[in-house]
């Protein structure tokens, strides 16, 4: 992308431009845009009227797509929490009509000149209707206003590159300015390899933003969903004031395969699952998907007031 030829002075100039434009955006209080949260590929019935079936990832039973989606992708047969798209998750959480998307356009960057990377991203954007692996906006959860960020594993495994890191960081900064709590749903395989070291640096960038937000008294509720691993689990995903998890979600730093190879033995049943983490003291509560809205609403309500009074 032609950065190799740029002098340090030229690069510095770019940096000031970004700082400036962000300041402006905040002052104008023009951070949000109305959003229609819709999944792109939503076809409960195929053209010839046959009911589309979805296979449960756990019990492998065929479930009618309509029923599965109505049930928030939780299998009605075995209760397994199948993957849910970011858009559907947002709809399941916010009060109808209250969600506005956070304006934060980050252009496509390809710092390693990774082959075919741009085509891959463009295709995913078309397919998923997402700009990146995270959908962020302001909405109300049971009447409580909050910054809501939902990662989508449908977008390159929710991996964190520059764009995703920038969006998450910006969300915390805007929430900080507007004194909003942050509700985050994580789902990610980790840092995005295709962007190299700059992906790694997103871990520091996002963690620093959480820290500043936290020092200013902000409430950060995070819900770990399947899977949350690698660079995301080792940054903003595990820095919440309140940490929830979905049943059966895989949560950890290293992948199970890497661990098995390293230690040369089989891992115990349920290793790195939400329940395992809960019993080892890294999760406040495991919350089923259909209760999530209520539980998060309750947490937000408990943090409404800064000071106690009777």
């Amino acid at each position, binding site marked *: *992308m032609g*950065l*190799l030829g*740029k002098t340090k002075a030229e*690069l*510095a100039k*770019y*940096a000031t*431009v*970004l*700082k400036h434009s962000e300041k402006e955006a905040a002052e104008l209080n023009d951070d949000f845009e109305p959003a229609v949260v819709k999944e792109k590929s939503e076809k409960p019935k195929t053209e010839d009227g046959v009911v589309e079936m979805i296979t449960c990832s756990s019990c492998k039973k065929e479930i009618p797509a309509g029923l599965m989606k109505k049930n928030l992708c939780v299998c009605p047969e075995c209760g397994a929490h199948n993957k849910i798209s970011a858009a559907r998750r947002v709809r399941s959480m916010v009060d109808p009509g209250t969600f506005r998307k956070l304006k934060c356009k*980050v*252009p496509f*960057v390809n*710092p*390693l000149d990774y082959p075919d990377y741009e085509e891959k991203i463009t295709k995913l954007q078309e397919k998923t209707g997402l700009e990146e692996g995270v959908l962020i906006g302001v909405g109300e959860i049971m009447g409580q206003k909050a910054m809501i960020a939902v990662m989508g594993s449908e977008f390159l495994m929710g991996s964190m590159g*520059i764009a995703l*890191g*920038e969006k998450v*960081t910006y969300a915390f900064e805007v929430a900080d300015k507007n004194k909003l709590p942050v509700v985050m749903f994580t789902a990610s395989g980790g*840092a995005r*390899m295709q962007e*190299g*070291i*700059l992906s*790694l*640096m997103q*871990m*520091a*960038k996002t*963690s*620093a*933003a*959480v*820290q*500043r937000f*936290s*020092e200013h008294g902000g409430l950060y509720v995070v819900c770990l969903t399947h899977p949350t*691993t690698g*660079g995301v*689990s*080792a*940054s*903003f*995903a*595990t*820095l919440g004031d309140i940490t929830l998890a979905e049943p059966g979600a895989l*949560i*950890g*730093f*290293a992948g199970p395969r890497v*661990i098995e190879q*390293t*230690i040369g033995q089989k*891992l*115990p049943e349920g*290793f790195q699952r939400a329940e395992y983490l809960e019993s*080892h*003291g*890294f999760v406040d509560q495991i919350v089923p998907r259909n209760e999530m809205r209520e539980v998060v609403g309750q947490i937000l309500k408990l943090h409404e007031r800064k000071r106690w009074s009777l």
Partner: protein
Amino acid sequence: MMREIDEKLRAIDTEIEELSAKTDDYAADVRVKELKSEKKKLLRQCENLTPADKVYLARSIKRPKVDDYINALFDDFFIQRGDFLSKEDKSIYGGIASFHGTPVTVLGHRKGRNINENMEFNFGMPEPEGYRKALRMMKQAEKFGRPIITFIDTPGAYPGLEAEEHGQANAIARNLAEMSSLKVPIIAIVTGEGSSGGALAIGVANSVYMLEHAVYSVLSPEGFASILWKDSNRSAEACDLMKLTAQDLKHYNVIDGIIKEPLGGIQQNPNKVYREIDALLMLELAKYKKMSPNELAKNRYDKFRYMDAAIIEAAKKENQA
């Protein structure tokens, strides 16, 4: 390429050592001279190294380890052990020391000089306890207003069963967050290999430097190849693609500067490099002395916040054009 050169160099070094033990042996003296000129020739071949060469050098067991740097650069070193929660993790080594009379906190990943040491120090791969120990030392440094100097040299955080059970992800995240707001200067030097979050977990610094042949990357080249191409044998290809050399990272604004190494790597003349690091630390600390505690934290926040701003803006411009 570097591997073959390095093997030859090592053979020559061993032979020179053996021959030097013999006194009053004319033939031996001649042979030593020959060997030395041969060595010079070999070293001259090390002028243009490929990224894969640098990965090889960065991992070399002959490279100085964190305790070498601490001994060479600081006085009155007082080692600190334990995370004061459950364990002493030997893959993180550090404590309090004096740098030209100024108390500082120094710490780094600890690799070994041989297989036994490496087993003991877990090849420089910390478990959560190691990161928590590092954080304990750094928080203490903040309390007493000591600058922090870290040395990065790790294949990554340890991917083990207990490490996961004890919250590896959480320990790393906590370090990243807390380091970002510490109110004392932090200077990090990547001395060998800096791989993944395990490296960054002690690397959120106001200034980050790298040795000329050190590497710093999102994951090891083997891991990178294995994730993207499902083939860890393609690591040489990954090295070329990953932009993991000091020179690349300087270009991307990820690091502030490069510390020069002698031809063939730091092990050829470590003292020269120590002197350079010493001068560099003096300059850096003088610079940060002028900043207030809050300015120091803000300086660090902005560094990581806007590290990629230039790249994002350049892409925006390109899109508009």
